[in-house]
């Protein structure tokens, strides 16, 4: 849908300098770009997902929302698309598929580093992290943690690593099917395990997979994994429950695909005050316990807080006023309407 700006050197080694870095590109992070943009403050957004829109795009793209003021009905994806359209004039830079791991104050600015090693130097940080980072669900199998990273993976970085592996892929959606088809020619063997003989994934992928099974090139098991066996992180076998009973199959790698869930993640280590995984803020500026770090949307907490998109939009507008002061110290903000201010209309590209 969108690409990060290549001349911004998102992975180019050096530190990226920014007025504002927004952690999280959910609806509230996106709208923050607009409110900041009206005040001439430019933003970089970082999200662990490979797309923008947060919960709206990931959890309910097709479902209708009825309580966005002035829009009687809009789906999660439509709202995301329209927010993208609305903020386009402000040229935000997106860094998708990256998780912000650390945030530190360094003199008069902040330093943020992602899991991909991208570093930012920002005057202001806006945490719009919603319910936290979208993270793959971990099947509640005993001892699974000890295998993670060595023989249990939630994503594939290098296919070659599976060359000599007997791979068990679990799930019935596109991720499970795509990796089955991609790894089948590479891995020593591939077994796909799904709880029912019906797949949510794209029909042509299902067809290809069934052909491979018919040709004896891979195995499909209808059932569920109940136990993992192995030692020191190296998987040797998995117990699988099927209609016929239990079976122990020899596998040396497992890829479970059970969707994503939101986990607070690294935010817990940023030295911010936390209250039950939420960041307390004031209701004038939506600033955290650390001056210059703001929190808007689902991630923040204050008396009377409602986790609604419309509340997040309001918070973003007030936050922008104070953020402006950090970016342009001493400069006064003139209160203006988009309807009547030719200055604002120029910024929006409508004049």
């Amino acid at each position, binding site marked *: 849908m969108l690409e990060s700006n290549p001349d911004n050197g998102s992975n180019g080694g050096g530190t990226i300098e920014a007025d504002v870095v927004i952690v999280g590109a959910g609806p509230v992070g996106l709208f923050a770009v607009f409110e900041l943009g009206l005040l001439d403050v430019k933003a970089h957004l970082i999200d662990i997902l490979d797309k923008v829109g947060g919960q709206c795009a990931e*959890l*309910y793209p097709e*479902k209708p929302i009825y309580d966005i003021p002035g829009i009687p009905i809009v789906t999660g994806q439509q709202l995301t698309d329209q927010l993208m359209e609305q903020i386009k004039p402000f040229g935000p830079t997106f860094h998708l598929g990256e998780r912000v791991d650390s945030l530190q104050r360094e003199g008069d600015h902040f330093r943020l580093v992602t899991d991909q090693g991208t570093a930012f130097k920002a005057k202001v940080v806006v945490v719009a992290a919603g319910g936290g980072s979208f993270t793959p669900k971990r099947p*509640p199998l005993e001892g699974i943690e000890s295998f993670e990273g060595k023989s249990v993976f939630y994503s594939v970085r290098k296919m070659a690593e599976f060359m000599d592996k007997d791979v068990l892929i679990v799930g019935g959606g596109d991720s499970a099917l795509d990796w089955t088809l991609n790894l089948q020619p590479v891995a020593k063997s591939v077994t796909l395990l799904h709880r029912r003989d*019906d797949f*949510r994934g794209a029909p042509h992928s299902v067809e290809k997979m069934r052909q491979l099974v018919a040709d004896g090139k891979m195995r499909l098991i209808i059932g569920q994994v109940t136990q993992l066996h192995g030692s020191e992180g190296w998987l040797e076998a998995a117990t699988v429950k099927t209609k016929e009973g239990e079976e122990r199959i020899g596998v040396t790698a497992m890829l479970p695909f059970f*969707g994503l*869930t*939101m986990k607070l993640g690294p935010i817990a280590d940023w030295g911010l005050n936390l209250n039950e995984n939420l960041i307390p803020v004031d209701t004038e500026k939506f600033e955290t316990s650390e001056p210059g770090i703001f929190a808007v949307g689902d991630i923040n907490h204050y008396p009377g807080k409602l986790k609604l998109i419309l509340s997040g939009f309001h918070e973003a507008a007030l936050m922008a006023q104070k953020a402006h002061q950090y970016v342009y110290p001493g400069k006064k903000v003139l209160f203006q309407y988009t309807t009547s201010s030719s200055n604002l209309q120029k910024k929006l590209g409508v004049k």
Partner: protein
Amino acid sequence: MAKITFIQPDGSSQVVEAQNGVTVMEAAKLHEVPGIEAECGGACACATCHVYVDEAWREKTGTPADVEEDMLDFAFDVREESRLSCQIKVTDALDGLVVRVPAKQF
């Protein structure tokens, strides 16, 4: 109106009263039944409201619709009697319903 019994993995149980029209998930949340997380608030988008319907009640609660079946793929230890409790509406016919809460919702 229906009385619904939620049985926990340790065997303990809790009976709650639910108005017609609410969902079994909502009844559980209103009465703080442990083990029903319902992260998505009933939108059939999270599978963290998974329950096992007692054998005697399976016919009355019916079978999952396609979207619910798809979502059940994201639940753990799914069985024949698995349902997402946010997709079961309470009616008089469900008075006495018994459901089991799974050991883990993921």
